[in-house]
C-alpha cells in the first residue's frame, strides 16, 4: 500500500483529496489528510462581512463534509516534517505518519505581530483587519457605529492573499458610506508598497483611474515599518507618516511555522518549488502548491484551483515513472468587486498581464475582462456557490487550467 499524505485541508488540500481519491485506486493507495481545524472558511467571503453583505453562515462549513469518505482525516497540529525519514510528526497521540509522497498545502496566514505597534491596546479598536473571520466580524461591528473620519487601508508587505481584496475593500467602503449618507464625512486612502494600485501595468492604470473617479486617495511605494497606535500614525521605513482615525490593515503574511521549523521554507516559511511542476526544490517526493508555495503568482483560490488541476494530471504521470511536464503557467482569475453592484474581471499568468476582452467564451462572455460590468458582479456572487459545490469537490468548472489568449486583445 502506497501512502500519500496531504498537509492542510484548505481550498487546495480539500480539492486535491477529492480529485486524487477519485483517480487513485483504493487497493493501492492510502490517502491521509491532516489539518488542525475542523472549520472550513470561505475566505473570499470575509471581504463582504464588514459591510453586512455576508453573515457568518455564508462563510463557515465543516471541513469533514467536503472531504471524501475514503480519505483518512486527522484533526491535529503538525509538529515536524522530517523529509529525510519520509515522515511527519503530529501532536495528536504523538503519532508519526510515514509517507511515500507528501503534498504541502498549509496555506498562508496574516501575522499582525510582525509589525511593531500593530497588536496592542488599539487592536480591534482603531486598528482592524478583515483577513480573519474574527477580524471581519469585529470590523462589521465597528463600521456600524463609526461616525466618519480618515479611513486608511494599508498593505504591510508582499506577498499577501488575494491581491485584489484591498482594492475591493476600499471600493465597497465607498459604496457603503454613500448608502449610509455619510460619504462626505469619510476620507478614504489606500496605502500600498506597490508603485501603483496593482502590479501589472494595464490593470494598475485602470484600477488607478477607478480609485480617482471614486475620490479615493492612493499613496504608493509606502513600506510601513511600524504603527504608533496611540498617535494613530502609520510610519514607513523612510519615516514618512500617514495619519488615520481608523486603520484597516492587511498584515504581513507568512507560511505555516512548521514549514520553517522543518527547514523546508524560505524567509517567510513558503516552500520553494519549481514554478512549472510544483515539485520541491529539495526533495523529489514532496510537492507544494496554493498559498503555501513560494511561487511568483497570486496567493488566491483560483490559482490553487488551476495549479491543483494541472498537478493531479502530472502526479499521475510521475507515480507511473514518467517525467513531470512543466505545465503550470501561474494562471490566476479574479473578480474584483467595484461597488454599486458592479465588478471587474482579470485573467493572467506568469508571463501575460491582464488584458481586456470577453471571458470565458471569446467574443461572447458573458463576463468582460478589465472592464466594469454588472455581470461581473453577479459572477462574483455566483462564485460562492461554485466554490462549495464544484471547486472544493474537484468537479469541472468549465475554465481551462492554463490561461487562454482567445477573446483577448492587447
Amino acid at each position, binding site marked *: 500500500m502506497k501512502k500519500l499524505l496531504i498537509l492542510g485541508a484548505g481550498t487546495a488540500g480539500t480539492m486535491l483529496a477529492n480529485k486524487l481519491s477519485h483517480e487513485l485506486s483504493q487497493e493501492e493507495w492510502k490517502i491521509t489528510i491532516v489539518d488542525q481545524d475542523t472549520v472550513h472558511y470561505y475566505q473570499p467571503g470575509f471581504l463582504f462581512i464588514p459591510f453586512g453583505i455576508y453573515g457568518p453562515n455564508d462563510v463557515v462549513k465543516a471541513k469533514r463534509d467536503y472531504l471524501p469518505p475514503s480519505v483518512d482525516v486527522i484533526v491535529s497540529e503538525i509538529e515536524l516534517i522530517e523529509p529525510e525519514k519520509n515522515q511527519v510528526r503530529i501532536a495528536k497521540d504523538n503519532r508519526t505518519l510515514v509517507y511515500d509522497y507528501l503534498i504541502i498545502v498549509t496555506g498562508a496566514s496574516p501575522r499582525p505581530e510582525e509589525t511593531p505597534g500593530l497588536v496592542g491596546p488599539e487592536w480591534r479598536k482603531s486598528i482592524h483587519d478583515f483577513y480573519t473571520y474574527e477580524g471581519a466580524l469585529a470590523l462589521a461591528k465597528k463600521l456600524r457605529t463609526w461616525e466618519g473620519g480618515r479611513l486608511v487601508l494599508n498593505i504591510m508587505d*508582499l506577498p499577501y492573499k488575494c491581491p485584489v481584496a484591498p482594492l475591493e475593500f476600499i471600493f465597497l467602503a465607498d459604496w457603503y458610506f454613500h448608502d449610509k449618507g455619510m460619504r462626505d464625512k469619510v476620507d478614504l486612502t489606500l496605502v500600498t508598497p506597490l508603485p501603483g494600485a496593482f*502590479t501589472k501595468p494595464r490593470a494598475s492604470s485602470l484600477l488607478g483611474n477607478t480609485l480617482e473617479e471614486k475620490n479615493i486617495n492612493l499613496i504608493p*511605494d509606502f513600506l510601513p515599518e511600524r504603527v504608533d497606535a496611540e498617535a494613530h500614525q502609520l510610519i514607513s*521605513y*523612510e519615516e514618512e507618516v500617514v495619519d488615520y482615525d481608523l486603520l484597516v490593515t492587511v498584515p504581513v503574511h507568512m507560511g505555516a511555522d512548521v514549514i520553517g521549523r522543518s527547514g523546508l521554507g524560505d*524567509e517567510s516559511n513558503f516552500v*520553494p518549488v519549481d514554478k512549472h511542476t510544483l515539485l520541491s526544490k529539495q526533495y523529489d517526493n514532496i510537492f507544494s502548491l496554493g498559498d503555501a508555495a513560494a511561487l511568483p503568482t*497570486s*496567493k488566491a483560490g483560483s490559482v490553487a484551483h488551476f495549479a491543483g488541476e494541472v498537478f493531479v494530471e502530472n502526479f499521475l504521470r510521475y507515480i507511473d515513472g514518467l517525467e513531470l511536464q512543466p505545465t503550470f503557467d501561474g494562471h490566476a482569475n479574479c473578480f474584483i468587486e467595484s461597488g454599486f453592484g458592479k465588478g471587474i474581471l482579470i485573467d493572467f499568468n506568469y508571463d501575460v498581464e491582464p488584458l481586456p476582452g470577453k471571458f470565458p467564451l471569446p467574443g461572447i462572455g458573458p463576463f468582460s475582462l478589465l472592464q466594469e460590468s454588472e455581470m461581473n458582479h453577479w459572477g462574483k456572487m455566483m462564485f460562492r456557490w461554485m466554490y462549495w459545490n464544484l471547486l472544493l469537490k474537484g468537479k469541472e468548472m468549465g475554465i481551462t487550467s492554463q490561461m487562454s489568449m482567445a477573446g483577448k486583445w492587447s
Partner: protein
Amino acid sequence: MTTVRDIAGNEIEFGDDGYMLNPDDWNQDVAAELAKEIGIDPLTDRHWDVINFCREDYEEQGDAPTLRRISKVGGVPTKELYKLFPKGPAKKVAYVSGLKKPSGCI
C-alpha cells in the same frame, strides 16, 4: 527594444525596463558606474555586503531577492537598506547588482 550602452568600458545590453539583460556581463566597475547614475557614490563596504548577497542569492534562486529576504537572510536590516539605497531599495539594489527588475509580483 534593447539598448547597448558603454558602462565603465563594457558594452552592456539593457532591456525595455532599463535593467541589465545579462547578469553575467556585470562586474564591480559596472556596479560602481550604475550606482553613480542613480546618485549613489561611492559604494561603501556596507553597499557591497548587500550587492554581494544579492548576486549570490540570484545565483542560487534565480530571482532578485526581496527586501524581506535581504534583511532576514542577508542580515542587513530594512531600515539600513533604505539609508544605503534611498527611495525604492529593492529596485535600486537589483539595478546596481546587474539583476532583473524585481517582479514585485502579487
